[in-house]
């Protein structure tokens, strides 16, 4: 059971510039109607950049080396993006260390470096998270309405530095009905309890967890030759990849497997694309626009560019590019982040999105050397 509530007081530490920025960002996040306001985004992003280069010395030097200064950058597209890997190396925060209230860490083992997101407030993080999950995963919920959420991941108490557990905890606390639960304990899926939940479900529910946790569940159901048909209206949210888990699986295969064993059609399986280093998340569009192409969408205070890594410019139509995110929720760290993922734009009406590309199944290496990060897990 989720332990909440959490401390969501603002953490500007008395810095009026930061307080002003936080207030503007929070105001946007609290609006009921989402509007992709490019002008508003651009102005806030540039203002936030100017604040962050001033407040975070390593970032200022990083930008200086690229000729990007507080006075030279006038368009948000010119803001230098920090690679996610840098969060493993450098404490990227815009506030004094002593004001830190929470640290989220990327997954990893004790002998690998883990990326860290330092926060002096959870208010913005949560103000971004909640309307986004509500819009893309629970679009039909009326204000104040709750639904059953079953989480295949540790509780925030068990994994206090996991942003994913924090997100699930907040979702359960804010949107979950009384019979919501975490079916995970001591690092393991509570399979008997979960099977009971699956077998007894009479009302639609949301099963949420990592892709790998779902694979674990589905393998168990395979070995038991057990299938379920979850009530119509149920949905699944899966997130994360398979790196370091010894098994890669294309998403369409995973979704077909889910449909076979859990009776939830692929069209109601939502992939969440998020990462520890980001305050905001992206979700598949399938529940909000079931007729349109599946694509990742995010809230209006976030922009994504797909950047051709060889030439450093926007990737052409249909061409892959590095998913580079500009997230106004990251006021306390760095807003512009180059992820380690490649994506491709998915055009669709007024709200284009993107898709994240995985490694091509069966792709072979050109040489007999080996990319050393794969070999050594660094």
């Amino acid at each position: 059971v989720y332990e909440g509530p959490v401390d969501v007081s603002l953490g500007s530490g008395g810095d009026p510039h930061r307080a002003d920025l936080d207030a503007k960002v929070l105001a946007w996040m609290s609006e009921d109607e989402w509007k992709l306001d490019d002008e508003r985004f651009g102005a806030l992003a540039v203002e936030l950049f100017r604040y962050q280069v001033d407040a975070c010395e390593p970032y200022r030097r990083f930008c200086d080396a690229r000729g990007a200064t507080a006075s030279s950058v006038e368009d948000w597209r010119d803001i230098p993006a920090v690679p996610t890997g840098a969060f493993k190396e450098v404490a990227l925060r815009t506030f004094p260390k002593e004001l830190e209230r929470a640290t989220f860490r990327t997954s990893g083992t004790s002998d690998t470096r883990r990326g860290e997101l330092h926060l002096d407030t959870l208010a913005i993080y949560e103000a971004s998270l909640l309307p986004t999950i509500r819009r893309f995963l629970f679009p039909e919920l009326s204000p104040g309405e709750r639904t059953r959420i079953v989480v295949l991941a540790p509780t925030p108490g068990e994994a206090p530095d996991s942003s994913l557990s924090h997100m699930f905890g907040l979702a359960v606390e804010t949107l979950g009905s009384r019979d919501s639960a975490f079916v995970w304990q001591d690092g393991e899926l509570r399979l008997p309890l979960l099977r009971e939940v699956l077998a007894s479900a009479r009302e639609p529910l949301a099963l949420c967890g990592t892709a790998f946790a779902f694979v674990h569940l589905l393998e168990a159901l395979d070995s038991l030759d057990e299938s379920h048909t979850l009530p119509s209206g149920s949905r699944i949210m899966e997130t994360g990849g398979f790196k370091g888990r010894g098994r890669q699986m294309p998403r369409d295969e995973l979704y077909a497997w889910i449909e076979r064993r859990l009776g939830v059609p692929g069209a109601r399986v939502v992939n969440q694309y998020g990462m520890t280093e980001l305050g905001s998340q992206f979700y598949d569009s399938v529940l909000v626009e079931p007729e349109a192409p599946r694509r990742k969408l995010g809230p209006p205070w976030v922009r994504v560019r797909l950047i051709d890594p060889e030439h450093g410019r926007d990737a052409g139509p249909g061409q892959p590019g590095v998913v580079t995110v500009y997230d106004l929720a990251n006021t306390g760290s760095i807003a512009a982040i180059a992820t380690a993922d490649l994506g491709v734009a998915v055009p669709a009406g007024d709200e284009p999105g993107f898709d994240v590309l995985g490694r091509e199944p069966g792709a072979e290496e050109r040489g007999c050397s080996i990319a050393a990060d794969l070999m050594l897990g660094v």
Partner: protein
Amino acid sequence: VPGSTLEAIAGAEDRLVRAGAALRQRPRERTLESLAAVFDAWSEPGGRWQRRLVAELPAATGFSAPNVEEGLARALASWNGEALREWVTREIGESSTAVGFDQTRVLLAGSIPMPTMLSLVAPLILHSPVLAKTASRDPVTAHVFEESLAAVDPELAAALEIVSFPGDDSDGAAAFVSAGCVVATGSDETVADVARLVAPGTRLVTYGHRLSIAVLGPLALSPESLSETARLLALDVALWDQLGCLSPVAVYCASDTGATRAVDVGQVSEALALALEEVELRLPRGELPTATAAATRAERDGAQMRCAAGEDVSVRGDDRLRWTVIREPDAHWRAAPLHRFLRVHPVHGREALLAAVAPLSRHLAAVALDGFDNLANLDGGPQSLSDDLRQIGASRICRPGTLQTPPIGWHHDAEPLLTPLVRD
């Protein structure tokens, strides 16, 4: 066409049964004579077969034509008939009666031609007919080699069949590995996949992926030697775009713990950067996959962020990601995206060097070693540095500039090539 892969494999299998019967009737000397003639033809600089690969390999593999030309000329220069005979004698003896299996199935990998040639020829030496599957990134070399064999000895060439099918064709893969002996090269994941497919009792010979490094001492890094050392290492990096197991991915600049001759890693990085820029003009880098470009950009940006945070790191590289040199502050191992991406590490003393290299042991192929008064003088020690490195896992120690020219018969797993294929 559904079933076409299975039909192709079945057809090849039938033909190999007949070719195998003829092959086994031959004296080995006749086979060696033919293979020696084939290798003599291949080793000829600018000869017919090298020219064929220079013409056809770039489009298929993404390497630039000058790179293929230089790589082949250097690697095959000493791979002549005489060298082939010496290799066979060294491994199984001059008058050995050792024979291979009724058929050997070879799963080719990568896009560098020399390992492909060795993989095809080894079973034939043992009079085992070969069915090979081409690597998706090199559909050319195996066929050209087969042609060169047919030009010398059609009967021997009939014992070599080549098929191609997608890597995710599980039915095709299962049929392909149904033989007495299967040879597979590839990543740990690929090798594990093949191991799951083969029937119990099958001889499975696997070769994994490897990498190489350079260890340089003060003499190689002195002002008089540095530019030449860098030129030679840059060649090792540039050939085959650093994708071969013999391509160095990291350079360790070693000084003794007393630091009486501490090396300037910054100068080494600068010299390597200049050398890589120069070699790019002569041997342009080939195709850069988007994922590699992204990884390179991320590693460069990450290093620049470390520099911005006060670490003693520098990044050198051109705008188009044709080469990168990162000066590291320590010997800590970091990701290597390949495609001409080099890290330069300082390391003080023998113990620190060996500790830095030790995590690589399972995957270490070769070490380019140079610049020590004698190989034992880095802080002294009971044995030479090269012995230490061999003990850690390096199967080849050589000078910079020669990493890409191993002797015929050397394999990156340091295992013999013929004896694992011999039927008991």
